[in-house]
């Protein structure tokens, strides 16, 4: 069959393609030449090009995985409304009658991944809100508890803090010790960016690291030396404990063990970062952080992938900062739990920065897997 030439034929071809996608089809729009569908009677207007292409990519992944996306997921994708500012739904080139106004119609195959990811992020954020998480309840107060306050690495301290609260060991109290939790500096940078990505939002990883390098200063939450000194001025150096070993942390706060945070890949963290602005439209800030960190992070941890690594051009600067941290902490004389040389540890091989293609693929996988959970 030859390509349709009239607007009516173009529209019939488009509805035929929509029906094909609903049934799990993967043919790109530019190769779809079959027309004639009555589907137009069921809906007033064609879904946007972004939504259609996202469904096609989902179908491609589903075909590779030998699963069916299902009618419910297809409908969700086709009726999705993109959150945030940016270009609106695009018309389908060769289908919608060109009006001469608005953005010109587009071949969905030419859309950049970022536009498809905007639709996917909206749907994933809805999934996260729908799944919900239980609020953390404080356990019966233990009078013999070690009075403490956890500061430092945000990603490591968050689950520890919640666990202690559940066990009746909330932070604070008279004569509390200040526990500065730290690890190797590249890891601490990655943890800080990860924690921000699951909370209030943060620039992309490489931009964020470059920002610190340009200013010549570590971000406060990735700077244990500055944190320790700040607290030492307020409570005295003897009250400040620097913990560089996850096992030692449990001992210092007087419990047998503490949970560790989920291991989320570089691409997983970047996906979470892209969900934050959408989550801000669906949940209040306090709830948003809980949903992302305790709801989304364990789900993301189920998908393996390379961890975050500091880009090569910043490694020397980070190594220099790590030496400054170790020397400063030792010189100040705080009780240090763990080997201070941990701070100087070389980054493990195999890490990298997030990659757009992999982030998009992960979003597709999560949408596909999430269809069973809804």
């Amino acid at each position, binding site marked *: 069959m030859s390509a349709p030439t009239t607007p009516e034929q173009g529209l019939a071809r488009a509805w035929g393609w929509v029906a094909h996608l609903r049934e799990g089809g993967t043919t790109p729009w530019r190769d779809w030449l079959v027309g004639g569908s009555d589907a137009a009677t069921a809906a*007033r*207007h064609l*879904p*946007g090009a972004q*939504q259609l292409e996202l469904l096609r990519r989902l179908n491609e992944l589903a075909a590779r995985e030998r699963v069916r996306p299902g009618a419910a997921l297809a409908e969700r994708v086709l*009726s*999705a*409304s*993109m*959150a*945030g*500012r*940016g*270009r*609106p*739904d695009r018309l389908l080139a060769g289908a919608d009658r060109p*009006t*001469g*106004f*608005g*953005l010109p119609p587009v071949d969905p195959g030419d859309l950049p991944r970022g536009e498809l990811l905007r639709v996917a992020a*909206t749907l994933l954020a809805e999934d996260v809100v729908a799944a919900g998480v239980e609020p953390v309840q*404080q356990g019966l*107060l233990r009078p013999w508890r070690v009075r403490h*306050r956890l500061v430092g690495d945000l990603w490591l301290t968050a689950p520890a803090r919640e666990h202690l609260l559940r066990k009746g060991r*909330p*932070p*604070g*109290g008279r004569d509390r010790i200040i526990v500065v939790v730290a690890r190797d500096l590249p890891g601490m940078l990655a943890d800080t960016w990860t924690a921000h990505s699951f909370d209030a939002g943060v620039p992309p990883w490489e931009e964020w690291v470059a920002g610190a390098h340009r200013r010549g200063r570590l971000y406060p939450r990735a700077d244990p030396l500055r944190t320790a000194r700040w607290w030492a001025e307020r409570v005295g150096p003897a009250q400040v404990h620097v913990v560089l070993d996850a096992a030692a942390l449990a001992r210092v706060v007087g419990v047998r063990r503490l949970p560790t945070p989920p291991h989320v890949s570089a691409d997983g963290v970047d996906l979470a970062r892209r969900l934050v*602005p*959408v989550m*801000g*439209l*669906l*949940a*209040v*800030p306090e709830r948003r952080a809980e949903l992302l960190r305790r709801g989304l992070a364990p789900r993301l941890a189920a998908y393996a992938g390379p961890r975050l690594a500091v880009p090569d051009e910043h490694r020397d600067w980070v190594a220099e900062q790590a030496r400054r941290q170790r020397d400063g902490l030792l010189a100040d004389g705080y009780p240090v739990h763990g080997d201070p040389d941990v701070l100087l540890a070389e980054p493990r091989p195999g890490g990298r920065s997030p990659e757009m293609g992999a982030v998009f693929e992960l979003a597709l996988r999560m949408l596909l897997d999430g269809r069973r959970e809804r």
Partner: protein
Amino acid sequence: MSKRVLLHVGTPKTGTSYLQDVLFRNRDRLAAQGVHYPLDRFDGHFLAALDLMRLPWGGLETHAIGEWDRLVARTRELLAAPSEGDVSVIISHEIFAAASRSQTGRALAQLGLDDPETEIHLLLSVRDLVRQIPAEWQENVKHRSTLSFAAFLEQISDPERDSRIGSWFWGVQEIPDILDRWGADLPPARVHLVTVPAPGSPKDLLWERFEEAFGLRGLDIEREGERANPSLGVPETALLRRINRSANRVVPPAAYRPLVRELLAHQTLSQRTGSPRLALPLELHGQVQETSRRWVEAIKERGYDVVGDLDDLIGEPPTTYVDPDRPAPRQVNAAAIDAIKALLVENGRLLAEQERLDAELARTREELHRAYLRPTYKLREKIVRRLEGHPAGRRVMRVYRRVRGRPQPPAMPEG
């Protein structure tokens, strides 16, 4: 008996703040006459629009969660209520203009597009691009933007509309496209365009056009509104942009709104007269007029109900142009002096308020202190201290507090 939803979706800078203020102030009076403007706070429909379109807006979006569905439910409830006469529900906010096709489809379906008993009327108030372009830039500056006018013009000239500014500007200003997104499923007779009169027209003309389009004519309402979105001149807008560049990092959004946008821009700088007005650069005028002519032709062909004159959309050619990126220093200085004066007056008012509150606090403390000195208080304090000293006593106190509905002592120290 008719049941109508009057959906006013834009565009910005067309007198919408004044219209919404009159509707808000008269909402009880209007409701008694069968015309409902359902909202509890002035910006209720703005929040509903943010929610429908899932738009971030400097933190306000957290107040918007669920607002669109609530507005729809309230509208359906008002339309379904038994009534002896006609019932109309007005929904109005200019940022609805930016809604995408999927969002407009959802909104219209929820409001009763398929309900044969409900008539949905779309209203769009429109003004010529010649005035809208500088007005939109100024609106950006009043929302913390530091973008120069030249950069703004460059971004809106990008045919791909790849920037945030470009996609938003055309989203809320390209009239035929807005009507394609919102009006495609409605009969042309239920799509009403209100044109903003050309400069120099009688002051009441725009309001009369709104009255006609909304069917408010002959209703008993007070027309005086307080809220407006007044315009600034060239030096005032240039000053505001410089303030943004310097203060954005240190002034949080919650303080920016009352101090910069309200106090400085609306209450102070917009009151200055005699400054050169913002305008389109003369060399762009022909091109912009050409675009407007194309729009007017398309609108005429579609057969909408037009209140006013579509030819007003072509825009008058400006006679002078003062570049807001290179304002006269003396004029900016004069505007800055007025701004400093306004801030000093406001600070004076706040200092007086602080003194009043300090005095009130001192009086309260004194009264509290006297209450502590009473023998009965001392006796009660002694009993409580004794009870809190052992577990059984603490249990008694807990029961007592629960019975009296008083808060338990804090158990959660700092986090």
